[in-house]
């Protein structure tokens, strides 16, 4: 099945809002792109439109949360994560308000629209804020479980999802989900691939392709980028070789964080597959991924190169 993660999240919110009147969704003229039109129509009394004002979006969400609401602030990840960073730092993380920041059309989802619309610094920016948690679910099933967990725990969180429909990584009714614990998709001793968000599918496929060539790769879905599952990273480090894969720029993302952990606790060879530290080429998100090697084929090439050395 192929469903956009944002739609999966909206479905959970629609279901839960029927009985939980404290759920409030806020949009910044983004209800269409956020798949929240149905929510706004069905629950107008639990929906707040703030207009094109992302700073206001986050502060108002924090004010609602401070008065007992479960506020979900929905806006394109590019604007939400860095334009509102100050509000996220002060009103959400520092004030510890129950706000779920839902960054939609994350990474390079907007493709040819260019760097203004890309969010490839969000992990670096928001991950550096004390008390801010970051989640990048890989498919609709995980996105649903994550949303349900976040609606219960009452703590600030940033969730980044892409714009397009993504194929299922997991099987329905057989999703191993534990909050803040990475999911091991495949066990292996030769090397480990750690991915987050919609790069997990590419990592999974790379693991399958490597297996066919007799290379046993451990594949880890690190949907919980922060707090990162250190135990899972240490498990990966025991293979001696790690490839990280993420839809983020080179500095400060999943790869950097994995390197920090391994360098301090279990040094091993790590290769970070990321977007470059430059504005990316023009193209669809798929073309951008292929151009920079964020696909299964390139992961396989890198894995074999690492094993040759």
């Amino acid at each position, binding site marked *: 099945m192929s469903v956009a993660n944002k739609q999966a999240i909206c479905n959970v919110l629609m279901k839960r809002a029927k009985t939980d009147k404290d759920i409030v969704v806020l949009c910044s003229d983004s209800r269409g792109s956020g798949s929240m039109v149905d929510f706004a129509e069905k629950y107008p009394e639990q929906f707040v439109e703030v207009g094109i004002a992302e700073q206001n979006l986050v502060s108002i969400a924090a*004010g609602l949360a401070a008065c007992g609401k479960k506020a979900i602030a929905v806006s394109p990840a590019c604007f939400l994560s860095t334009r509102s960073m100050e509000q996220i730092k002060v009103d959400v993380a520092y004030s510890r308000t129950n706000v779920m920041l839902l960054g939609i059309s994350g990474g390079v989802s907007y493709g040819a629209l260019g760097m203004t619309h890309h969010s490839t610094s969000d992990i670096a920016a928001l991950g550096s804020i004390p008390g801010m948690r970051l989640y990048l679910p890989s498919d609709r099933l995980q996105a649903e479980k994550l949303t349900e967990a976040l609606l219960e725990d009452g703590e600030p969180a940033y969730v980044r999802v892409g714009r397009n429909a993504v194929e299922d990584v997991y099987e329905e009714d057989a999703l191993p989900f534990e909050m803040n614990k990475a999911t091991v998709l495949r066990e292996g001793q030769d090397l480990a691939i750690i991915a987050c968000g919609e790069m997990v599918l590419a990592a999974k496929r790379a693991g399958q392709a490597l297996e066919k060539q007799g290379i046993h790769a451990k594949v880890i879905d690190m949907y919980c980028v922060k707090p990162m599952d250190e135990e899972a990273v240490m498990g990966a480090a025991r293979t001696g070789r790690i490839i990280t894969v993420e839809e983020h720029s080179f500095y400060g993302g999943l790869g950097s964080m994995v390197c920090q952990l391994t360098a301090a606790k279990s040094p091993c060879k790590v290769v970070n597959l990321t977007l470059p530290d430059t504005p990316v080429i023009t193209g669809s998100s798929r073309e951008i991924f292929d151009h920079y090697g964020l696909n299964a084929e390139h992961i396989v090439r890198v894995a074999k190169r690492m094993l040759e050395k």
Partner: protein
Amino acid sequence: MNTVKDLERKACEIRMDTIKLVYTAGCGHIGGDMSETEALVALYYKYMNCNPDRADDPDRDRFILSKGHSVETLYCILADKGYFDREELMSTYCRYESRFIGHPNNKIPGVEMNSGSLGHGLPVAVGMALAGKMDRKDYRVYTVMGDGELAEGSVWEGAMAAGHYKLDNLCAIVDRNRLQISGTTEEVMSQRNLEERFMSFGWNVLSVQGNHMASIDGALAVAGESVGRPTVIIANTVKGWGVSFMEDNASWHHKVFNGEQYEQAMAELQDRRAKLL
């Protein structure tokens, strides 16, 4: 404590506590503390439904000090009302490992939200007021902003939303002391037509002498009657008000007293208090 004279006496006492706090700690934003005192005293001792024994009461009125640097006045009021121990505040404010940070922090009982970065209080207050409307609760939401703070664009995002949603349970107070850290607001970034600007966003606008207790008292009463519009009280104040050598002097934004200045400031306020007994 409902008469203007009672409130004036309390304002005088809070000023003395605030000066003592800043002098003892050796830091603070005393100029803005002094200019905002009447507004905070009127709110906490007459208008706001708040009680330290029920600090989490869902029906309490909410207050956000958007100009968070003037936290000393707020802390002195909260201590006086019994939210925490006054001596702990006096002896630990801004000291190593103290819970009393130099800007409001919601780990302190009575503080609703962390502030200090300007331009946050009004948008957060909009969220609180919206929550009150959603839940059909009667509580009111207040925020005090500085006039220099109004250069922050986020203030106007919040003002726009408050007018749009007709948040008559929201009252913003602008401490219009006309001075900021680099000089006069008119030199740094002029705040022309302030009343008209808020009016154009759909606000009920009141402009009063902000260090005149009867005026601020009257304005808060009028604000409570507004229907369908949020209220802003432009409190025309004097920075450093209450202490002769500090008044209308930008250098007292965050200057610290020497011993002689401290004695003089306290003597002036004691004289004033004596006249109010």
